[in-house]
């Protein structure tokens, strides 16, 4: 990093802390250095900033008063869930309040007949499925951080997971979000009916990265848990063949519950770590899960095997029981920590591409590995085209930092070039804000700002995230033309 962190203004800090302490108990307001340290970053640890003040409200009324107070004082507010986000969306403001929703842990209602759960935003994603399990129900979106991430954060990021091709993203599984605008006005989007009158503001709220409103209560849809699930694991001697096999499954009219690809460097890294039984000879492996009624699963598993065999699979294994199914998945789910074992640092990208361009993009990544002298194993939500290339580097080597940064920028721009996007599920946050300038034109960014203005005219809620200013893009464009490193005085990178 090596760049000076913005210094907290102690006069302003005392003023804001005092204003919040007027209605919040002592335990709910932190401002001393060591107390605020745990909030200095989210899951994207390369970006750090001590917040001026941390507020930990316990009631909705407190949330409303915090927002009103900050609005009146012109203080920026950054909402935070569990802090597992990978794009720096919860990076604290050095001149504002970090609003932690961690104490909003209650399940307000679980209604098995209506198949909904009404929960507070701090409730963990996996906890919802746990409480619904006795009724044969579950909450479908399953980001790999599901044991830790909160539903409030999922709403902010429109989180996906390995099962979203069939069961959808957060936006498809949330029925209602209640919360507050930056000025403290209560807002209620969606409902328990399947639609609402007027514009679909719920769709706008989901994935808005905490820029439009602060959620205080979320109603999610629960689905009946499939009775049976089995996984086919297939090996290929060529990644493009594996990509074609994915297309062939779709062409056969099958929508698998999960369809994941890992390349050889990725399988080697995870196999040492968890021993999932992956074929280390294969250039790529596919994991294809089918779920549903037992009869249906048998029927579709047979079809998937046939399709993979025809597509040139060199080895095919079907999970025999639940233990083996979980074992096959364990490697994929441990992919990120496994990279941490083989490299001091790794940097995860999140581009999405049309699947038919997979070979081209993987070849491009291969060329970038050579160009920058860095390794980059790939894990891929193959069913929906969402790539997670993981660049391995050592953050203590400034040369590697710079190369990682340029490597990832080139890959994201390649994703845009082939008709994809810079982020499939991790969000823009602070991390990909410059690439937004490449993905969108000025008029589109202007419209995003106008949408933001409708909700938060003073621009106090999570400022500087998600959507770049046009000035920033002009600046970025200039630097880009020079082909230099993407440096920004105000933002330490990696």
């Amino acid at each position, binding site marked *: 990093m090596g760049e000076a962190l913005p210094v907290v203004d102690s006069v302003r800090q005392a003023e804001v802390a005092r204003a919040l302490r007027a209605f919040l108990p002592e335990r709910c307001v932190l401002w001393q250095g060591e107390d605020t340290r745990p909030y200095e970053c989210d899951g994207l640890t390369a970006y750090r900033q001590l917040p001026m003040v941390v507020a930990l409200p316990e009631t909705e009324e407190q949330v409303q008063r915090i927002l009103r107070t900050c609005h009146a004082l012109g203080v920026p507010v950054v909402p935070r869930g569990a802090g597992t986000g990978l794009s720096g969306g919860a990076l604290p403001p050095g001149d504002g309040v970090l609003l932690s929703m961690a104490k909003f842990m209650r399940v307000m209602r679980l209604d098995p007949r209506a198949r909904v759960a009404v929960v507070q935003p701090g409730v963990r994603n996996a906890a919802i499925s746990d409480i619904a399990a006795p009724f044969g129900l579950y909450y479908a979106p399953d980001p790999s951080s599901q044991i830790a991430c909160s539903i409030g954060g999922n709403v902010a990021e429109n989180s996906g997971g390995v099962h979203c091709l069939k069961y959808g993203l957060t936006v498809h599984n949330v029925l209602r979000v209640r919360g507050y605008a930056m000025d403290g006005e209560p807002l209620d989007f969606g409902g*328990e009916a399947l639609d609402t009158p007027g514009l679909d503001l719920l769709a706008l709220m989901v994935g808005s990265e905490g820029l439009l409103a602060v959620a205080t209560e979320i109603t999610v849809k629960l689905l009946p848990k499939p009775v049976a699930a089995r996984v086919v694991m297939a090996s290929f001697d060529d990644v493009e063949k594996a990509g074609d096999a994915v297309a062939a499954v779709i062409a056969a009219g099958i929508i698998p519950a999960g369809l994941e690809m890992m390349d050889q460097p990725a399988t080697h890294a995870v196999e040492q770590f968890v021993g999932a039984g992956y074929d280390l000879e294969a250039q790529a492996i596919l994991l294809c899960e089918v779920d549903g009624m037992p009869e249906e699963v048998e029927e579709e598993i047979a079809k998937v095997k046939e399709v993979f065999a025809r597509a040139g699979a060199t080895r095919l294994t079907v999970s025999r029981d639940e233990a083996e199914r979980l074992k096959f998945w364990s490697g994929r789910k441990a992919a990120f920590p496994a990279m941490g074992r083989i490299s001091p640092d790794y940097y995860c990208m999140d581009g999405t591409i049309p699947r038919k361009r997979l070979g081209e993009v993987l070849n491009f990544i291969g060329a970038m590995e050579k160009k920058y002298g860095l390794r980059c194993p790939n894990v891929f939500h193959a*069913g929906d085209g969402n790539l997670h290339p993981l660049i391995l580097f050592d953050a203590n080597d400034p040369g590697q930092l710079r190369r990682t940064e340029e490597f990832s920028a080139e890959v994201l721009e390649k994703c845009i070039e082939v008709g994809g996007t810079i982020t499939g599920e991790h969000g823009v946050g602070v991390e990909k804000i410059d690439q*937004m300038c490449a993905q969108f034109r000025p008029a589109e960014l202007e419209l995003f700002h106008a949408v933001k203005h409708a909700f938060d005219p003073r621009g106090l809620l999570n400022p500087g995230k*998600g959507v770049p200013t046009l000035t920033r893009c002009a600046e970025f464009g200039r630097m880009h033309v020079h082909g230099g490193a993407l440096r920004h005085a105000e933002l330490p990178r990696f």
Partner: protein
Amino acid sequence: MLQSFQERIRDAAGRGAALRLRGGGSKDFYGGAPRGELLETRGYAGVVDYEPTELVVTARCGTRLAQLEATLAASGQMLAFEPPHFGADATLGGCVAAGLSGPRRAAAGALRDFVLGARLLDGRARDLAFGGRVMKNVAGYDVSRLLAGSLGTLGLILEVSLKVLPRPPQELTLALELPEDKALDALNRWAGSPLPLSASAWRESELRIRLSGAPSAVRAAAEKIGGEIVDAAQAGGFWSRIREHADPYFAGDAPLWRLSLPSHAAPLGLPGAQLIEWGGALRWLRTRADGAAVRAAAARAGGHATLFRGGDRAAGAFAPLAPALLRLHRELKAAFDPAGVFNPGRLHPDF
């Protein structure tokens, strides 16, 4: 053609005039009465990109919905939200603007769930693109999904990318005799168990259920549910008549209300004949009862009521918005269409 659209928009904005955006005109009846100078989009037609294995189709707004569905069917795929056409000339643009979904909605999702990207001309005639042609995309606000059901009030939708799905290998329709309360109870119970339900319709004590999926799954579910198997050809016609409002239930001139409720809401007991879809979540009502009473009953049950066809729509076709949401609607309308050019009064009497 794009340029002529842009000229019309600039011209209207300059004169303070309104434009009435129209595809096939099949949904003119829906929402507030259309007004303004007619701008027809039918000429801007055609599938731009369709690769069945990507599960995505991109087409221009004037593309006939029937033609688009035929193109998908040729590759064994479909629009899973089963949109109503309400006329042979229905276009994709109108379909997205109206945001309506058909019988498969409760099982597969609504139109808005399948929107991946869109291109639109805003009130300044700017050609803007949001979302994309990939399944997962969280860059920027989800503006393309916001267009679903916006009734053309935010801009001229030029092009839309939709997720498509394979057609189910098998469908089977069952008929059961059940009174309203028992039918609602059964529908909610079944929806909570892993059965391949894809549609339901209840009227006059008869409940029809459609199952879709792998033949083995459909067979097993049919045994669990029971009832009479409806002849396949007849069943196809039945679901299409329900979707297109061609069923005898929809005949006559009594006002047609659309009540969108939590699926488990108890019978409302309002006067008039009902047709219940979406596992209980969509309840059509033919009634001359006072609109305020219908709206109040829907709100008490946790939903809302739309005066879908006929009746007096002077007070608006849709349930009124809460003040905070109305303010956001006005602000968003101003962001997309500052001069108020597009489809005034269609979504809300005030804008």
